[in-house]
């Protein structure tokens, strides 16, 4: 019986994410991946059933990593203002510290893999996010909106700022931009204003 070599598996996973981020899903082949990870193609098939299985397994570990970091210090019974602040800090930290993983998750979202992956989302995470919103609506801290509208207003401004931060440049290109707590608090205040009943 062959034992799993964690270092090999980690190298395969890391290189596969890099390949998808750099070249898209079509850029990932098992043969190219084997070469990049310094293993034989047969080794990859010890760990993963096929290429789709590999992609889905990558998504599962990355989404777990993201959910874990998102729930740090978060409680769905928090006031809307406090809870959203914790989430903003956690989401920004995750995206900035894991640019490859964050980009990979985005790619999955707009690919045919999304449907399969969405079904594997941990119900606990989804339930916590829902409970947070329901609590806030009940306490009249948040207006009732279609979920896409809520998400766009509550989080898209943050992710745009993260993008500016990652590029190091603001709207006019030449200007330096850095997302700090002061900027985040300023933005969050404006966002909360728009979401209050």
């Amino acid at each position, binding site marked *: 019986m*062959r034992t799993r070599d964690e270092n090999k598996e980690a190298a395969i996973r890391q290189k596969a994410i890099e390949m998808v981020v750099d070249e898209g899903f*079509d850029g990932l*082949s*098992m*043969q190219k991946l*084997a*070469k990049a990870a310094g*293993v*034989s*193609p*047969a*080794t990859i*098939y*010890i760990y993963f*059933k*096929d*290429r*789709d*299985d590999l992609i889905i397994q990558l998504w599962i570990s990355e989404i777990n990593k993201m959910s874990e970091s998102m729930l740090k210090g978060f409680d769905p019974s928090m006031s809307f203002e406090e809870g959203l602040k914790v989430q903003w800090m956690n989401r920004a930290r995750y995206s900035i510290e894991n640019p490859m993983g964050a980009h990979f998750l985005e790619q999955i979202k707009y690919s045919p893999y999304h449907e399969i992956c969405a079904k594997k989302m941990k119900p606990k995470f989804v339930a916590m996010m829902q409970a947070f919103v329901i609590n806030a609506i009940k306490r009249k801290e948040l207006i009732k909106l279609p979920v896409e509208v809520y998400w766009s207003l509550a989080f898209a401004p943050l992710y745009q700022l993260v993008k500016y931060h990652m590029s190091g440049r603001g709207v006019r290109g030449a200007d330096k931009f850095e997302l700090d707590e002061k900027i985040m608090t300023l933005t969050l205040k404006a966002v909360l204003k728009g979401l209050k009943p």
Partner: protein
Amino acid sequence: MYSETISEILVFRTNIQPDDATQLSATLNTETKIRHWTIDFTDVDNVLCVHTTQLTVENVVELITSLGFSCEELPD
């Protein structure tokens, strides 16, 4: 790495399509020297994996090409 590959899982780039699976199963399932086999149709190389300790790369290539498919060892 080399010995690991040779003794357990042999991998090949093929042109086998999902529709060919039935025809292929008939042959591969009756070959007692093959412990287990799979084809990755989700990869661009339609990778055939053959788990065997008794067949060589050449044996498998011969077997698959005799069925009318292209088959070459996937290089490391």
